[in-house]
């Protein structure tokens, strides 16, 4: 039994991210929405976000709350369909020499934890292509 880390990660044969897209202006958001931050529109349609994109910015985080493993690479990825996504870079060394701004990345998923009922939480990250 698996559960996504966040509800905008859709599991299944082709795990992908799903955004709420404003029906009026097309602005995309993740998570529960009340109205659109861009135009005030109140209706949204679920859309599949492209799995591939480029690295917009990153930081290698060494200092975090005690229970959080470090170092990790935090990133903002701009997907090929123009949606910003915040996530970790995965399958890459946390070394600035190995990470280049603008590099191509692709969505990938992994198991991030298991609860007392044996339910696995699935997270996503972006890996170099």
């Amino acid at each position, binding site marked *: 039994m698996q*559960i*996504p*880390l*966040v*509800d*905008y990660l859709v599991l299944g044969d082709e795990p992908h991210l799903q955004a709420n897209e404003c029906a009026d202006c097309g*602005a*995309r*958001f*993740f*998570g*529960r929405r009340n109205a659109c*931050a*861009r135009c005030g529109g109140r209706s949204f349609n679920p859309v599949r976000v492209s799995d591939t994109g480029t690295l*917009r*910015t*990153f*930081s*290698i*985080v*060494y*200092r*975090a*709350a*005690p*229970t*959080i*493993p*470090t170092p*990790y690479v*935090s*990133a*903002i990825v*701009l997907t090929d369909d*123009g*949606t*910003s*996504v*915040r*996530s*970790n870079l995965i399958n890459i060394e946390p070394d*600035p020499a190995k990470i280049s*701004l*603008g590099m191509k990345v692709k969505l990938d998923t992994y198991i*991030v*934890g298991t*609860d*007392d*009922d044996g*339910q696995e*939480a699935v*997270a*996503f*990250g972006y890996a170099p292509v």
Partner: protein
Amino acid sequence: MAQDIWVLGTHMTAFGRFPDQDAVDLATAAALGALDDGGVAISDMDILACGTLFQASAGMGQQVQKQIGQTGIPVYNVSNACATGATALRTVIMAIRSGEADLGLAIGVEQMGKMGLLSGGARKEKNVYEPSGRYGAVMGIDGILGTDTMPGVFAQAGMEYANDNDGVGFEQFAKVAQKNHAHSTLNPLAQYQREFTLEEVMGSPMQSYPNTLLMCCPTGDGAAACVLVGEERFASLSREQQSRAVKISASVLTTDPYVESGHMQPDVNTLTRNAATAAYEQAGVGPEDLSLVELHDCFATAELIHYDNLGLCEPGGAGDFIDRGAPRRDGETPVNVSGGLISKGHPIGATGVANVYEVATHLRGEAGDRQIEGANVGLAHVIGLGSSCGIHILEKSGAG
């Protein structure tokens, strides 16, 4: 502006860690200092605004009144992240502009002690995963889906600038911190007053690449206050009061307008650019007219991008700006001659008032060893994530 507004009196406590005092002690010291400096009394004040972030529900303004004078005037307790102090100032400015007040007191205070890393929650793993919150998350996402930590968020803002512009990298960011630590050695009110070499800055423990420990502001305690006066009352003040007063020629507060990436990361640029444009227009000055700038260098990466956001450098030229020493105290546009948040310290609620204190003190010619000679126009900038940006432009008094 409806009517001109002046800083009549201003004071700040030293920034540091003061476990023997509480926030009321610090705020009171700043308030009494500002009243004395302006030659006025609490009984002259028509309004008091008090900013603190971490004690936002404590009624800090009223607690200060109970120490310095309960005169029954309206108190506004304000909280607006790192723009809290600037928001307290603006609250008094708006009251004077509206005609409801002639004189007012703005205080910013914070007692943080050794609070350590801000934001980035510990991960609380539930025994049984259940989606909760606006993202339906089954556990804390910090460190899995990127970072919530302040050094990391501002690192990403800096790296995005490096992505878009040539000549910006780890060394340019480090030079910012080296400069501010060097500046702080001349400021007796700074939390740290020690110079470091560029190698020491770059070699100190990495917090969030490219921000090392010496490129991050500390937590700490402190307070600052300003007494503000409107034009009508200003005319009846003594010649000495008028000559030391500093004119507020722009006061602006903005929030971040919609940008595509805003749903995933704080945008610290657009609202700063908007605030700067509005402030320069209000004041009728341009960035080339500024004798000094105190800007929000919570992290070295932040200062560098604000050179561009405030128009201090050519568009895209922040790397060259620091490389050629332009923001050093002997450069084209001295930036953070107080030592900045990185070395002077950043007791959050106090910061937006303390940077006005710093600029005003230079415009008065009273900044001692760190005085920027001939300073006549200065800009104070803060940004609070969420986001809010406050900019005040101050001008030397023409009177006296």
